[in-house]
C-alpha cells in the first residue's frame, strides 16, 4: 500500500511542485492551506508524513506540530517542517516540538525527497 503524505502549505506555487514530487515517488497526497485544515486532514486522511509549513494561516506550523504530537492517534505521523525564516532558534524550536526534520526554503528537491524517503523507511 502506498504511503500517504499531507502537504500543509499556503503558497500555491510551492504546493504545485510538492504535489508533483509526491506523485513522482508514488505517494498518495492531500493538501491543506491553513493550520486548522491541516489538523482536520491529519485526523481524517491518516497520513504517514506531513510536509508542514511554519507560517500557516489560522494555526502556525508549530501549533499544528504540537497538537499532532499531543494526540495519541496522530503522534506516529512523521513531520518535516518547511520554513522561510531559517533562524537557528526556529530550527531548534521545531525539533524540540517534535518535528522529525527541518528544511529551509529554498531547498533542493533531491534533499527533500531523500528526507521524505528516509522518514517513510523506504
Amino acid at each position, binding site marked *: 500500500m502506498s504511503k500517504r503524505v499531507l502537504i500543509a502549505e499556503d*503558497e500555491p*506555487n*510551492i504546493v*504545485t*511542485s*510538492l504535489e*508533483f*514530487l509526491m506523485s*513522482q515517488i508514488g505517494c498518495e497526497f492531500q493538501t491543506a492551506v491553513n493550520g486548522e485544515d491541516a489538523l482536520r486532514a491529519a485526523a481524517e486522511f491518516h497520513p504517514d508524513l506531513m510536509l508542514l509549513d511554519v*507560517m500557516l494561516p489560522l494555526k502556525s506550523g508549530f501549533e499544528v506540530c504540537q497538537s499532532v504530537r499531543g494526540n495519541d492517534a496522530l503522534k506516529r505521523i512523521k513531520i518535516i517542517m*518547511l520554513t*522561510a*525564516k*531559517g533562524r537557528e532558534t526556529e530550527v531548534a524550536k521545531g525539533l524540540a516540538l517534535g518535528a522529525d526534520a527541518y528544511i*529551509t*526554503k*529554498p*531547498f*533542493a*528537491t*533531491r534533499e527533500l525527497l531523500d528526507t521524505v524517503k528516509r522518514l517513510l523507511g523506504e
Partner: protein
Amino acid sequence: MAPRARFFAVWIVCFALLAAAAAGVLLAVYDALAPDEQRRFSGVLAAAGNTLIVLGVILFIIGGFLAAGLERAFLAPVRRLAESTRLIAAGNPSYRADAEGPAEVREAAAAVNALAERHETLTLGIEEQIRHAHAELGDETNRLAALMSELASGVVVCTVEGRILLYNEHARQMFSGVGVPGYIGLGRSLFSLLDRQLVVHALDQLRYRLAQGEPRPVSVFLASPVPALLLRVRMAPVMATASGQPEKREPSGFVLLMDDVGAEVALFEQRDHVLEQLIQSARASLASIRMAAENLESFPQMGPERQAQFAAIISVEAHRLTAHLEGATREHSDLVRSLWSPEQMRAADLVAVARRRIEEHLGLATATGEIDELLWVSADSYSLAQALCYVVRRARDELAARDVRFHVTASGRHARIDVQWEGERVPGPSALAWESQPLTSAGEASPLTLREDLGRHRAEAWCESDAGTGGRFRLLLPVTEPVRAFHAPAQPSRPEFYDFDLFSQPGLERDLDERKLTELAYTAFDTETTGLEPAAGDEIISIGAVRMLNGRLLAGEVFDQLVDPRRPISAASARIHGISPGMVAGQPTLEQVLPMFHQFCEDTVLVGHNAAFDMRFLQLKESATGVRFTQPVLDTLLLSAVLHRDLGEHQLEAIAARFGVSVTGRHTALGDAMVTGEIFLRMIPLLAERGIVTLRQAREASERTFHARIRY
C-alpha cells in the same frame, strides 16, 4: 512682657510707693500729737478725706499721662532705633534710622546712620571683591554650563541618595513632557522620574566594578518613565573629593547621560522588519522557482502541460521576487532618509571634504577658485560629498571633464557651490539623467538618488554649459546661522542648574522640625482668587510658586498655572489681579491643578504671605480633591511682625521696601510668590540674630505674635 507694659507696671509700683510714703508720714505725725490734737487731726482728715482721694486719683492720672508721654518721647524711639540698627546690620545695609524723639535719641540715630553709611561702604567694597572672585569662578562655571547645554544628551547629576544636584536644559525638556510623573529640580528626588530599582541596581553595579579596581566604570540601562519616552541612560560615578582615603573608592554621587532613543529604536525595528519581510518572501519565491526548475530538469518525461505549468511558476515567482526587492529598496531608502542628521558646517569645509573624496576615489586632483569662507550650511556632509563625487565621476566619464575647480559664493539666502570643468559641452541645460540614478562612484553605492539627496537638503542643482569650452554643475544650498541654534533655550542659559554645594546637604532623616532654616527646601507660593471669602464659595483662579534652596530663589523652577474656577470672578478682585473670565476659560480645573501643585511642593516647607488665607482655600478643597498639604507653613507676615513689631506695616509692599526687594509682577500669583520668597530669604539671618534658627523656633515665634490670631 512687652516693654511698654513693663514701663507702666513700673509707674504703678512707683505711685503705690509714693502713696505708701505719704501714708507713713501722716501716721508718724498722728503718733507724735497729744490725744486732743489727734482727735482734731482725725476730724480734719475725715472732713477732707474725699478731697484727698480725688486729689490722689487726679495725681495718678496726670502722672500716668506724663509717664506715657515720657515713654513715647524717650523709650519708643530708642526701641525703634534698636530695630532699625538690627535691620541695617543683618538685612538691608541701605536702610537708615529715622531721626525722632528727644535730642539725645536723634543724636544717637545720626550716629547709627553714620555708622551704617560706613558699614554700607565697607560691605559694598567687600561685595565688590567677592563679585570679582566669583566672576573668575563664574567663568569656569559658564564654560561647564555651555558645555552641558551644548550636549545633545540630557545630563543629571545626583547624590547617591538620588537627590538632583544639577541638570541641563535637555534633561528638563525630556522630563517636562506630557505624562511624566514627577518634576525635575534641584534637591528633588530622581526617583519621581526614573524607577528607583533600576537606578539602585545600576549604582550597585558601579560600586561593584569600582571595588574590582575598574578606573572609570559606566553602567548602561534603558528606562521608559512613560510609554512615549525610551531613554538610554549611561551612569558614571562621581567620586568623593579625596579626603585621606584613596583606597576606599566610594561614589558620592553619579552622573546620568540620557538619550531619547525611542525614534531611533523604532527606525531600527522598522528596518529589521523590512529585512525580515524581504528574506521571507525571497525564500518563498526562490523555493518555488528552484523546485519548478529542478522538476523540469529531473523529470524531462513530464507532459507538456506540466512543463508549461512549471515554466509559468518560474516566471511569476521571478516577477514577485523582483517586486519584493524593489519594495524593500524603496522602504530602506525612506528609512535612511529619516535617520539623517545634518550638521552645521562651513560650505568651504564641505567642498574640502568632497575634494578629498574625489582625489581618493577617482584619483582626480581638483582645484578651488573663489571661496567664501563665511557661508554656513546645514548638511549631511557624507552624502553631499558622495553626491559631488558622483557628479564629477559622470562628468569625467561622459563629458571628458578635466581641470575640475570648485567655487563657493553667496547667492541670496543660498550658498552656491559650483563644480566647473573643462571638456565637452553639457548636452542641453539640466538635461542630464544623472539626477534620477543612485549615487554610485568607485564601487560605493547609496540607496539615495541625487534628486532625493538634494530634496532632503532643500537644495537645487543643475548642469549648464560654460561660456568657454566646458560646463559646470551648480548646487544651491540654503545657508544657516553660523552658531548652532539650541532647540528651546526658553531659560536663561545657566543660573540655578549648577549647585555643587548640595553634595554636603544632610539627608532627610533628621527630624524636620529641628532642622535649621538655612538647610531647608522651601516653596514660596501665592494664589489669586475670585473673591475674598473662601467659605462663601470663592475659588482659586491662579497658583504661582517658586522653589528655594540653599538660600537662593530658583527662578527657573516655578509653578505658574491659571485655574478655571467655574464661577464668576468678582469685579473688585478682577481689578486687583487683572485676570478676566476669558483668560481662565478652558484652563484646567482646581481638581486637575492641585495634584500637580502638590507634587511641585512635595518635601518642602511652604512659605506664603498671609498664608492662612491661601491655606484656607486649599484646605476647603481637601475633601473634593483628596489632596492634603500637610507640610509646615511659614508666613512672612507673621515673621515680619516677629522681627519688626515697632516698624509699622506688614503688608507685602512695605516689607519689600524695608528689605530692599524690588517688586515686579505684584498681584500675579507668581510675582507675589517670588517677592515673598526673596523677603523670606532675607529674614533668615535676622531671625537667627534673635535666636530663631530652627523651623520649630520659627513656627513657635510666629504663633506667639498677635497676627497669628487672624482667622479666615
